[in-house]
């Protein structure tokens, strides 16, 4: 092994939550992001898939572990407690696999990780970890704990304020912009003050912008539409600063976890299950899943997850395992695929995935029995009780999509293939010259 082979390999990851490949390429063509365009010209940008379901908690958990949800155990932003209808918020404590940064820490690498979803509570690393928006406060979000003081001194913000979207979307835009500015400042601070081998900074502000301003962007709304693009010019300014500060020989990856599209209608799946006779409650109206009846066949959690009320698994389960379970599951899947928007007549769902077809591993037992994948524009919701099947509102106007995420690697060619966020960490390990643990489900997108 010569000197070159032992040269330090540093890796920088910038993630931009919910940025579609199609949007980014349009922004690059429009000229809104010249700094990013310069980087893209030096590497390989591809469109790839999110996870099932296509939600950030699942996608980033899959990214950071390199395994499917059947191994890491995170199936959504809410889940039900085993043997109960009580729900809880899955956090890093429930993630049943080693993360990329824990693996790197074991190898003696110094890591800095900022804001990646499902990093609260912060698990120990060899370096710094700043938890995501699941953190209840800055005081609790960091490892080691004293980093919180640094964050306060930097006036760091964990997340933009989503409640502003209900009252004043212009104020929301200002808040998103300020949150990005503070996050970038913290990123540059830690880049300078930590002797990092691996650095990952996650930008959540793009997701917030898209949830609340996507329709305004599509409709070229005079003020809010322009603010949408202004945000991306601001983001490009951050990229420009990063270009001057990132060592030329550091490996670089930029990625998103899912795409976005406009919401035509929210779809209340539990309302539909009840209308079909598959879901009943013991209270009218029901207050939570705990009011489910012992006659209920199935219920839904966000987004599009269907759980059969299985005897032996669910506390008031009435569906027998085996043939009855399979029959009911098939009926629900078929009916979902035939379901149409009462207004437009369009189908609402494009696929109904069985758990065993999309997950494998020791956490399969807590997986949903079906995942209903929507047609773009139809956003499945897990609200327990709604009086209509669909709803279109002014506040939440953008929804996630499965197949329009992006991944970019500087200075490398991404091999032809069908890729997903599952493959990002194996790719990072290959870029760092490290072996990919055999238990990981993903593959490297670049040659070693």
């Amino acid at each position, binding site marked *: 092994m010569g000197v070159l082979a032992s040269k330090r390999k540093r890796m920088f990851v910038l993630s931009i939550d919910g940025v579609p490949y199609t949007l980014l390429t349009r922004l690059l063509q429009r000229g809104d992001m010249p700094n990013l365009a310069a980087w893209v010209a030096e590497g390989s940008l591809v469109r790839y898939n999110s996870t099932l379901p296509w*939600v950030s*908690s699942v996608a980033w958990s899959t990214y950071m572990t390199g*395994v499917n949800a059947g*191994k890491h*155990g995170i199936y*959504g*932003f*809410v*889940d039900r*407690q*085993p043997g109960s209808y009580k729900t*809880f*918020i*899955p*956090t890093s*404590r*429930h993630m*049943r*696999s*080693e993360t990329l940064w*824990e693996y790197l820490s*074991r*190898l*003696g690498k110094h890591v800095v990780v900022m804001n990646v979803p499902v990093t*609260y*509570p912060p698990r120990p690393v060899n370096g710094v970890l700043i938890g995501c*928006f*699941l953190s*209840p406060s800055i005081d609790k979000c960091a490892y080691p704990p004293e980093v919180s003081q640094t964050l306060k001194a930097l006036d760091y913000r964990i*997340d933009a304020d*989503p*409640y502003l*979207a*209900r009252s004043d979307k212009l104020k929301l835009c200002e808040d998103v912009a300020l949150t990005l500015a503070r996050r970038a400042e913290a990123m540059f601070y830690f880049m300078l003050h930590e002797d990092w081998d691996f650095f990952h900074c996650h930008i959540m502000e793009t997701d*917030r912008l898209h*949830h609340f301003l996507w329709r305004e962007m599509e409709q070229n709304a005079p003020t809010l539409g322009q603010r949408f693009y202004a945000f991306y010019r601001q983001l490009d300014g951050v990229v420009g600063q990063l270009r001057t500060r990132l060592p030329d020989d550091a490996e670089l990856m930029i990625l998103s976890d899912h795409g976005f599209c406009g919401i035509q209608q*929210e779809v209340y799946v539990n309302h539909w299950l009840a209308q079909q006779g598959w879901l009943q409650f013991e209270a009218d109206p029901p207050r939570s899943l705990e009011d489910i009846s012992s006659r209920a066949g199935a219920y839904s*959690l*966000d987004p599009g997850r269907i759980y059969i009320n299985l005897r032996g698994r669910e506390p008031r389960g009435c569906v027998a395992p085996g043939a009855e379970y399979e029959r009911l599951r098939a009926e629900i899947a078929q009916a979902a695929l035939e379901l149409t928007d009462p207004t437009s007549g369009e189908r609402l769902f494009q696929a109904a995935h069985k758990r065993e077809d999309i997950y494998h*591993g*020791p*956490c399969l037992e807590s997986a949903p029995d079906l995942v209903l994948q929507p047609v773009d524009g139809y*956003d499945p*919701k*897990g609200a327990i009780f709604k009086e209509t099947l669909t709803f279109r509102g002014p506040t*939440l106007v953008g*929804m996630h999509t499965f197949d329009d995420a992006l991944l970019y690697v500087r200075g490398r060619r991404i091999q032809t293939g069908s890729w997903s966020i599952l493959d990002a960490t194996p790719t990072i390990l290959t870029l760092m010259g490290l072996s990919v*643990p055999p*238990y990981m489900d993903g593959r490297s997108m670049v040659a070693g």
Partner: protein
Amino acid sequence: MEHQGFTLWFTGLSGAGKTTLALKVEEILRQRGMKVELLDGDVVRQNLSKGLGFSKEDRDTNIKRIGFVCKLLTRNGVVAIASAISPYREVRDFVRQDVGAFAEVYVKCPLETLVQRDVKGLYKKALAGEIANFTGVSDPYEEPRHPEVLVDSSQETPDESVTKIIAKLEALQYIPPAPQTPGGVYSNAERKAVEDRLQALGYI
């Protein structure tokens, strides 16, 4: 459910606590339904490696023999727990490569603490020159560079160390996770605040 075999290798100075931890981990893995075999260095030297001394060559042979048995057990779906000083890095790494499904636990403890504890009365004899080739006193110990788990028996209780080991084995997908109660992360007020935020974002 069929479990995959793997080798869990405890290394560290004499008296650091390898056997203590290995026994506790063995019990937990049996409770989780796994087949487990423990190859303890002191026991192995009475049978499989009877007659071997403490020269480097003999130590390497001893470790390779234990490693060979671990490999056979591992490939037949058994968890092989090895607990041996195994002072030389090169032969530990050889066993790691040979076995494949392998996790190393370094049971660290400062020599001064071990001399004070002297659980088997051996350090006193070694320091008096009555025992030759004693690791840490008259023979070297090469610390692992990247063990899967590092525990420090001078800083942690055995139960704390075992918790770390089990957590890492779960995270590495070597053992299935124990059923977990999902609570305890948030106070009621914190949980409400996070839930409200997730609802405002349309995630629940």
